[in-house]
Structures are given as C-alpha cells and as structure tokens.
C-alpha cells in the first residue's frame, strides 16, 4: 500500500521538480536535498534496491502506523527489531521511526540492556 502511494511521487520527482521533492522531504524530514543518489540502505522493512533507477519506499514510523504507544523495556521482541546485529540502536534515518518514538525507543533499549534483556554489544546468545 505504501508502494502505491510512493509510485506517483517517484514519477513526479523524475520529471525534475525540485519543489515537489522538497515538499516531500519536509513532510518526512530526513532528506536534505531534492534528490541525491544516496545508497538506499537496508533500512525499513524490506528496502528495495535496483541498478540505476530505484524507488525508495517512503519510510513510515512503525509506532505511528500500528499505534503502539507503549514502548516498554520488557518487550524484547519489539525492541529487537530496532537493534542491529551488533547490538547498536538502528538510527532513525534507516528505520523511519519518528523523533518522539525514537526517543522512547532508545530509552527502552537502554533500560533493557541494563537488565540483560538486550546485549550492549554483539548478539544475544
């Protein structure tokens, strides 16, 4: 569904309209320029990549979409989605989580680390 909404937007940016690109960037707040050839990165649930032209799916905040307000340190399964293999917290620009939720998320992850529910570094084994 998100791809459907993305497709017309991508077509519009391809016809080189910088204002269009800017309004989109402003709505999401993570795109500095109109259109930079950035590596898409593996972020987001299933980020796509292609050769020359690729559609960057508009990332949305999981917590806003699914209306999860309760970000708790005990919910390891939820938190683990936002922790990289190395144990690091995945940055917002890769996951698309909005700022208020990322703030709560990072607090929760740090609490979970403290009580050995999540690792500080490396995989939990």
């Amino acid at each position, binding site marked *: 569904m998100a791809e459907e909404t993305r497709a017309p937007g991508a077509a519009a940016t391809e016809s080189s309209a910088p204002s269009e690109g800017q309004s989109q960037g402003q709505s999401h707040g993570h795109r500095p320029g109109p259109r930079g050839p950035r590596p898409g990165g593996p972020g987001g649930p299933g980020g796509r990549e292609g050769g020359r032209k690729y559609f960057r799916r508009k990332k949305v905040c999981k917590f806003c979409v699914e209306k999860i307000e309760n970000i708790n*340190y*005990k919910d390891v399964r939820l938190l683990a989605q936002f922790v990289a293999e190395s144990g690091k917290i995945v940055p917002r620009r890769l996951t698309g989580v909005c700022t208020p939720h990322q703030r709560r998320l990072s607090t929760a992850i740090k609490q979970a680390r*403290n009580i*050995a529910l999540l690792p500080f570094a490396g995989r939990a084994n």
Partner: protein
Amino acid sequence: MNRTYEVMFIVRPDMAEEDLDKLISTLETAVTSTNGTVKSVEKMGKRRLAYVVGRFHDGMYVLLTVEGGGGLIHELERRLRVSEPVIKFLTVRIDEEQKRLDKIKKLRDARKKASAAPAAPATPEGGEAAPVTA
C-alpha cells in the same frame, strides 16, 4: 509522595524455588514496613541473559510493582544489593508513563465513539469502518 515503580531483578539460576519465595516475601515485608504497598509480584521464570553477568548465563527474572516514595526504593535497592543471590536489578518509575498512556487511550476512545456514533446510529456495535465504506 505516592509513586509507582517497577523493580525488576535477576536472581541466580541455581536458586531453589522456595528460597526465591522467601526472598520475595522478605522484600514484601520491607516494602510494607516503609509505608509502601506491593501491587503485584510476577515471576517471569528462567531466561537466558543477553550477556554474561558475573559468571552466569541464565537468570530468574522477577518483576515487582510497588507503590510508595523514594525512601522505599532506597531501602529496597539496598536490600537487593546486599542479598547475595540477586545478580542484577533495575528500578523504573512507571506512574507518569501510565498516566500518559491512559490519556492517549481516553483520547482514542473518545474519538472512536465520536466517529462511530453518527455513522451507525441503528447498529450499536458491528464495526465502525464498515458503514463508511459501504
């Protein structure tokens, strides 16, 4: 000062069940003697630790929800620190977060009711989105 706290602590995995119960009951009496109340005790069972603590790879998690002031937490943490089988503990204040969640929930319920009431006056229940799409 009545605040709600969650005290989670880990005891060593080789501790006997009755010893753990004894430890929990002593903590409970410590809470009640410092003008606090124990709201719930939850034994979360044995879990693998995310990293090695001391020399333990596993631990038994216990979650204690208490209500009271800061002095209570001070006393409780002191006890946890001196009790030998406890290998780790964490205290989190939860009342403000709970307040925030309740507020959001109330807001959502109110909004849901407002959107459901004019759309479906005949059917009291049965999906708020269904009449809109039909």
